[in-house]
C-alpha cells in the first residue's frame, strides 16, 4: 500500500503583537533589597526599567492580549487559528496547558494547542515548529506565543537574578506564503551545562514532606557561565542560520536575539561582524529579560521604531535554560492589515 502526503509550501510570519504590563519598575525600586545600584545594573545588563504584572494579572491574561493584537494585524479572526503553540516556563499548572486556556479565551476551543518548554529559546523553537506545520499543511494559521510572568518565579532578594527578569507576552501568526519567509532553523543543546539555569526544587520534594522548609522554585542562574556560553557559542549559531538561509551579514536588515543582556547582544553583533546597516533590537533596556516573550516583544518594538523594516530580513536567536538554543532567518511581517 502506498500512503499519500501533501506537497510542501512556504510559510512566513504574517504578523506580530506584544503586550507589556502597565507597571514600569525602574532599577531604583529593586536595588535596596540586593545592595546594588542603578549604575551597576545598567552597566552589567543595559536594563533601565522593566514591566511587572500586578498580582491579579495572569500569564494568560498577557498572552491573550498579545495574541489578539497579532491575529488582528494578520487580518484574521480567532476562528482562523488552527494551532496554538505557547512557549513558556511560568504557567503555574502542570495540566491542562496554557495554550488550551488561550483557546478558551479566544472562543476557539477546537484548534490544536500545546505548551513548549524551551525557556528563553522557546519562541524560536515555536517558530521552527510552526514553519514545518504550515509547510507540510498540517496547519494553516499557527499562533506562536512567547509569554512569561517571571515575577512569580524570581526571588527579589537574589542578587544574581532580581534585576534581570520581568513580565510580558508576544505573539506571531505564521501562515502560508508565496515565497520563503522562514529559513531553516539551526538548533540544539549543551545539556552538560543544564545546571546553569534552574527552577528547583521539584514538586516531589514537597509531596514527600509537606512540612519541610522547602523553598519556592524561583529561577536561579550562574550568570558568568551563561554569559560565557552565550557570547562564545551563539555567534556560530547565528552564522550557521545565515548560511542555512543562503545570505551573508551584508544582506541582513535586522538582528533580534533573545534579550538576555545588552552586553551579550553587543558581543554577538561584534563576533558575527554585523555591519552598521543591521538594526539591532535593544528592547532589554526598557523591558528586561522576559525569557520566551523577549524576541516577539523586541520584534514588535523594533517594527514600531523602524516601520521601514516590515518585510525585511531578520536573524532571530533564542538561547536559555537547558542550555538550549535555536536560530533562524525570517522575513519580518508585512505592514499590519489592521
Amino acid at each position, binding site marked *: 500500500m502506498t500512503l499519500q502526503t501533501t506537497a510542501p509550501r512556504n510559510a512566513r510570519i504574517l504578523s506580530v503583537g506584544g503586550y507589556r504590563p502597565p507597571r514600569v519598575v525602574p532599577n531604583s525600586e529593586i536595588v535596596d533589597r540586593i545592595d546594588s545600584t542603578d549604575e551597576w545594573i545598567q552597566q552589567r545588563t543595559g536594563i533601565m526599567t522593566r514591566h511587572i504584572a500586578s498580582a491579579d494579572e495572569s500569564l494568560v491574561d498577557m498572552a491573550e492580549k498579545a495574541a489578539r493584537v497579532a491575529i488582528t494585524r494578520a487580518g484574521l479572526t480567532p476562528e482562523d487559528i488552527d494551532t496554538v503553540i505557547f512557549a513558556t516556563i511560568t504557567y503555574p499548572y502542570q495540566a491542562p496547558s496554557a495554550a488550551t486556556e488561550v483557546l478558551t479565551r479566544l472562543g476557539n476551543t477546537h484548534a490544536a494547542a500545546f505548551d513548549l518548554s524551551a525557556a528563553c529559546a522557546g519562541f524560536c523553537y515555536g517558530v521552527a515548529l510552526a514553519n514545518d506545520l504550515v509547510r507540510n499543511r498540517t496547519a494553516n494559521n499557527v499562533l506562536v506565543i512567547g509569554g512569561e510572568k517571571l515575577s512569580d518565579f524570581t526571588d527579589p532578594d537574589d542578587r544574581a537574578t532580581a534585576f534581570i527578569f520581568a513580565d510580558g507576552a508576544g505573539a506571531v501568526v505564521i501562515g502560508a506564503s508565496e515565497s520563503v519567509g522562514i529559513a531553516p532553523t539551526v538548533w540544539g543543546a549543551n545539556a552538560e551545562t543544564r545546571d546553569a539555569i534552574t527552577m528547583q526544587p521539584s514538586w516531589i520534594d514537597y509531596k514527600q514532606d509537606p512540612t519541610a522548609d522547602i523553598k519556592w522554585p524561583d529561577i536561579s542562574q550562574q550568570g558568568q557561565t551563561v554569559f560565557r556560553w552565550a*557570547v562564545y557559542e551563539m555567534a556560530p549559531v547565528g552564522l550557521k542560520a545565515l548560511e542555512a538561509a543562503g545570505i551573508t551579514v551584508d544582506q541582513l536588515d535586522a538582528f533580534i536575539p533573545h534579550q538576555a543582556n545588552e552586553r551579550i547582544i553587543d558581543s554577538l553583533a561584534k563576533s558575527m561582524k554585523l555591519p552598521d546597516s543591521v538594526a539591532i533590537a535593544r528592547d532589554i533596556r526598557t523591558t528586561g529579560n522576559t525569557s520566551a516573550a523577549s524576541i516577539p516583544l523586541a520584534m514588535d518594538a523594533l517594527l514600531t521604531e523602524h516601520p521601514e523594516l516590515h518585510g525585511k530580513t531578520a536573524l532571530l536567536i533564542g538561547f536559555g535554560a537547558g542550555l538550549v538554543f535555536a536560530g533562524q532567518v525570517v522575513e519580518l511581517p508585512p505592514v499590519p492589515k489592521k
Partner: protein
Amino acid sequence: MALTQDAVLAGIKEIVVEVAGIDAGIIAMDKKFSDDLDVDSLSMVEVVVAAEEKFGVKIPDEEVTKMATVGDAVNYIVANA
C-alpha cells in the same frame, strides 16, 4: 613551543585593550582586573574567551574566579598552554 611570560603578557594586553578600551601602557602584571583596569566580571569572561582562542588553552570558570591580577592570568596560561 612553550609560551614565554612576555609573549602571554603582550597578548593579554592586546585583549584587555580591545575589551575594556583602555590604554595598553597601564596594563602590567600587578594590576587588578576589576580595580585597576575596569574589567568587571562579564568583561573578564570576554577576556578569558579571547585568551583561550589566542593561546589554545582551556580556562575553567573556577580558575577565572581566582584570577585577580593580570599576572594571575598570565601565569595560568604559561603553565597550562
